[in-house]
């Protein structure tokens, strides 16, 4: 039996290669994602462990919420006087203050921002005296050129940033600061490397201590962190405990190990999303690939049924027949996984390059190949292939030995009734879960909708042979009218084996269902943005930082003085917890705000006094508070109570809550404007005012002036970039589906060799024959498109419903795009038919007909 299996593999190289290719792509994606995320992880681990000192003293973090910490720029610091006390401790070798500042940008030579919205730019101080080494005992910075800055007007940059920005030692570097002055011009006096590998694209700017304190700590003689080096022989724990006794209240002493662990956890949290995101697409590719493999094996088994019957007649047991098929699957799975791993490695390299374009530079870290990646790739690849071959293998075993004697063999096929039943079960369960997620008040509705989508996809895939019949009948009617007998033949070929046609179409269906879902979501988001902007953007202009970072309040003062400007309302975005629920809020000056925005209040009014807050309707509902109630606001610096002054209709511009500007200072967050809403004096030309504003913002490339259109456009373009990325990833599923169609058609052509010979003998020309194959292919592709778009419409609407309160308020169905999808599918059908059609046309009539 083993020899028979092997011969079969060798004899059907091309077909097997095609089906193995589906596995190759799926596994490549899986292993590529794993290798890439492991590499990022490794890179961040190096950063996490390479940047901690033995012991660090820092302001107490309270709730160490990652998002809050990245949005709120905390100005809390530790007075420099503590350093002497710490240095005097018995276990301490040395202690030094460190400043960590954010919100700044290096302006490249071409006047663009370095990094932009990608990896952050971090301001550091050079330190007084020799810098404290990291916990491993190494200096963190490695000087390549020049020296550390010692006075105001001098800075040093990391080597990659200096290179990318185009600055050389001695050049004057422009830096956009979050404080005054907004643009700093400083001399580049040093260029350094980072001892523990790469910086993942982050930019480090080194200032002298006084300047760092001036720009990032409001000029206080204080530090963000006190770094402590332990004496030889003293453990981190011992030293941390000693230090804890002398530091002021509100600060904490932590070991380097636990800081590293914390930042590692934080990175993992952020990267977890990326990891899941990529793995979801790998999963989709594998599911689609599974369809392809099931189909290929089914067809191969059907074609070999006479041979299998012969084996049975010669005494092979059922088990031997089915295990022969499964062994083939195993071999294909192994080959596919191996190739997939290799391709995955390439993919990871490609991702590395791609992400470095977005600012996540990993050149300091080589690709990480974990044993787990290899094991998983083989396990998944082989398992999926064998699972896919299991049903055809069982069917193969059912071929009765007597079939070897018969001329025409009908494969034993399981009844469609069971399939329908299971499909209905999946369908109802899926639709139910989706409905629950969309309309009912269930926890984590998105999970319900997601599970529902999976259920419905399975139902459509399983039920597709039944759903396909009427669709293909329509094709038959249309084809017959347009293409006469060739059309009729094509349509009937497509209907000949509904399972095969449907399974082939299902692969495309899944891809298109997801693409449709995403396009509906995208269109809905865009419409929601447009409507939201239309509704709420009552200002004439808005001034923002390109990356959403707060900027110096000086700009707001400058702009107030611009001719033609009537009113300016500054706002700062902050994040906190209100009674334990995370809230994205805007801090504004109520009076200025009212001059520019009209917020419609369901009850009460905007907050003006200290310790007050207004809530959006949905937030008020979710924390069950209304006007007059008291909520507890929690920042990392502590908690305090605020009275609810009003509840307003949900607004994307304001966010979930509105607080007075005093809240920012109370919470210990550094003041900086996230946006300025500006009204022009009536009657002033918009263009003139805009030009004036741009002149006032000056040569600071971090600040952009937008009107209604460009604001909406900027918002949309963020969404669209993400959408295009998702489309690109889903494109993979489509590629696999196309392979599936090619495979099915090629196998069908082989199966129908004799028939094709006859058609040619009775006068079908080669072009007519090619058209016949092409039309069948187009029918399969459009069937997939119709099913996919139908399912996608359902999913899109359900998802929009479940996100209704999270910013996707309006449903939009991009009919134009959907029509394009159908057209593209038809094109896909035409393309997929090229090779099989050519093969069919090339068949030698005589040989085909005499069946040699």
């Amino acid at each position: 039996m083993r020899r028979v299996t092997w011969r079969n593999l060798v004899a059907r190289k091309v077909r097997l290669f095609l089906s193995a290719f589906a596995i190759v792509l799926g596994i490549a994606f899986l292993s590529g994602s794993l290798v890439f995320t492991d590499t990022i992880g490794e890179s961040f681990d190096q950063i996490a462990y390479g940047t901690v000192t033995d012991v660090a003293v820092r302001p107490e973090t309270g709730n160490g919420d990652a998002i809050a910490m990245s949005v709120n720029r905390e100005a809390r610091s530790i007075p420099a006087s503590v350093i002497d006390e710490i240095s005097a401790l018995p276990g301490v070798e040395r202690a030094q203050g460190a400043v960590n500042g954010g919100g700044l940008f290096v302006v490249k030579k071409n006047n663009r921002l370095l990094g932009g919205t990608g990896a952050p730019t971090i301001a550091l101080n050079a330190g007084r005296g020799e810098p404290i080494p990291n916990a491993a005992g190494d200096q963190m910075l490695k000087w390549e050129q020049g020296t550390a800055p010692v006075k105001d007007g001098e800075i040093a940059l990391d080597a990659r940033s200096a290179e990318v920005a185009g600055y050389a030692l001695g050049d004057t570097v422009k830096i956009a600061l979050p404080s005054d002055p907004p643009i700093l011009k400083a001399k580049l006096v040093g260029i350094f490397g980072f001892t523990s590998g790469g910086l993942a694209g982050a930019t480090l700017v080194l200032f002298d201590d006084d300047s760092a304190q001036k720009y990032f700590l409001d000029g206080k003689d204080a530090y963000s962190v006190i770094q402590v080096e332990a004496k030889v022989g003293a453990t981190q724990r011992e030293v941390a405990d000693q230090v804890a006794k002398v530091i002021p209240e509100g600060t904490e002493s932590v070991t380097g190990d636990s800081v590293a662990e914390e930042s590692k956890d934080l990175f993992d949290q952020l990267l977890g999303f990326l990891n899941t995101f990529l793995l979801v697409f790998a999963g989709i590719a594998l599911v689609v690939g599974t369809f392809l493999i099931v189909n290929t094996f089914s067809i191969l088994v059907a074609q070999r049924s006479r041979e299998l019957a012969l084996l049975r007649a010669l005494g092979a047991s059922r088990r031997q027949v089915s295990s022969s098929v499964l062994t083939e699957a195993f071999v294909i799975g192994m080959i596919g996984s191996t190739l997939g791993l290799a391709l995955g490695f390439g993919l990871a390299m490609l991702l590395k390059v791609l992400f470095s374009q977005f600012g996540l530079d990993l050149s300091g870290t080589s690709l990480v190949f974990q044993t787990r990646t290899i094991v998983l790739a083989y396990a998944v690849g082989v398992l999926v292939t064998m699972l896919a071959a299991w049903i055809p293998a069982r069917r193969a075993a059912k071929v009765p030995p007597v079939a070897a004697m018969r001329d025409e063999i009908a494969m034993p096929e399981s009844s469609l009734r069971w399939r329908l039943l299971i499909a209905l079960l999946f369908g109802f369960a899926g639709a139910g879960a989706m409905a629950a997620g969309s309309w009912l008040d269930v926890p984590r509705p998105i999970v319900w909708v997601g599970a529902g989508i999976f259920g419905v996809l399975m139902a459509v895939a399983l039920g597709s042979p039944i759903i396909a019949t009427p669709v293909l009948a329509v094709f038959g009617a249309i084809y017959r009218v347009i293409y006469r007998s060739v059309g009729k033949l094509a349509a009937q070929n497509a209907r000949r084996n509904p399972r095969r046609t449907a399974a082939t179409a299902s692969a495309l269906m899944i891809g298109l269902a997801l693409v449709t879902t995403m396009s509906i979501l995208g269109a809905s988001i865009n419409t929601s943005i447009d409507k939201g902007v239309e509704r709420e953007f009552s200002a004439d202009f808005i001034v923002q930082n390109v990356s959403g970072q707060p900027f110096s309040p000086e700009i707001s003062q400058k702009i107030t003085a611009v001719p033609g400007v009537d009113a300016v309302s500054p706002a700062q975005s902050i994040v906190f917890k209100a009674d334990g629920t995370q809230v994205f809020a805007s801090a504004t000056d109520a009076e200025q705000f009212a001059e520019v925005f009209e917020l419609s209040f369901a009850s009460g009014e905007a907050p003006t006094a200290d310790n007050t807050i207004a809530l959006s309707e949905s937030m008020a509902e979710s924390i069950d508070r209304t006007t007059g109630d008291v909520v507890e606001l929690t920042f990392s610096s502590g908690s305090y109570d605020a009275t609810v002054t009003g509840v307003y209709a949900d607004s994307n511009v304001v966010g979930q809550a509105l607080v007075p500007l005093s809240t920012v200072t109370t919470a210990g967050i550094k003041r900086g404007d996230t946006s300025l809403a500006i009204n022009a004096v009536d009657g002033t030309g918009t263009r003139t005012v805009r030009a004036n504003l741009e002149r006032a913002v000056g040569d600071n490339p971090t600040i952009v002036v937008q009107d209604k259109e460009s604001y909406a456009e900027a918002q949309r373009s963020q969404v669209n970039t993400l959408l295009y990325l998702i489309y690109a990833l889903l494109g993979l599923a489509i590629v696999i589906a196309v392979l599936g169609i090619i495979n099915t058609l090629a196998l069908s052509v082989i199966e129908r060799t004799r028939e094709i010979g006859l058609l040619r003998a009775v006068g079908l020309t080669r072009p007519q024959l090619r058209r016949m194959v092409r039309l069948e292919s187009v029918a399969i592709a459009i069937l997939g498109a119709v099913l996919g778009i139908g399912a996608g419409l359902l999913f899109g609407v359900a998802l929009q419903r479940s996100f209704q309160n999270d910013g996707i308020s309006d449903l939009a169905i991009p009919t134009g795009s959907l029509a394009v999808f159908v057209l593209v599918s038809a094109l896909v059908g035409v393309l997929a038919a090229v090779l099989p059609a050519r093969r069919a046309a090339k068949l030698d009539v005589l040989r085909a007909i005499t069946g040699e």
Partner: protein
Amino acid sequence: MEKTVAAHAHELTKTYGKGDAQVRALDGVSIEIYEGEFTAVMGPSGSGKSTLMHCMAALDTPDSGRVTIGSTTLAKLDDKALTVMRREKLGFIFQAFNLVPTLTAEENILLPLSIAGKKPDPKWYANVIEAVGLADRLKHRPNEMSGGQAQRVACARALVSRPKIVFADEPTGNLDSTSGAEVLSFLRRSVDEFGQTIVMVTHDPVAASYTDRVVYLADGRVVSELRHPTAEKVLERMSVVQRRIGV
């Protein structure tokens, strides 16, 4: 009465394989097929009778020599012209019935016409259907028919486009004697009543007895010919031929 030549093969040669495995299937064979006649081509296995028919039917090309159908020389035609020639001038009946399984009997019969985008001549179509005796099975698919019925559908398909010549390759090879007789009587009738020209390859003396003329092939050449055959005469001539070539 001078007979009109419907098809003419002149000095055809055809060799398969290379070196030791070389087989000379046709060795300078020449034959004329007359209009309105039922011709049988007979010969032992490997005599080249199928190859001859395939070459004359524009399904295969000879290495040398010339085939003329009516006034057209096949060698000058490209694939497209050959296809049109098959579609319009030739009809085929195969041993394995070769019906399209997705089409009904009627659709199979009309296939050559519908491929060409033509409508059948209703009177002729009715004649053919009546002659094959399939009027009540027209809506059936091939898998719902017996072998004899399927082969009669194939016969009707070959005749429906009023071809100049019908080529039949062992049309009764897969049939029992009763079904075979039905098919052969139908072919005979189409010659007698419609004046159809038919060339049939067979090794069955009974089948050959339905024809007007039997041509014997051996080793790629015409070795003998018999007019107005009966089954006995055919058998007798076969044994003579076989003795002469030493089989």
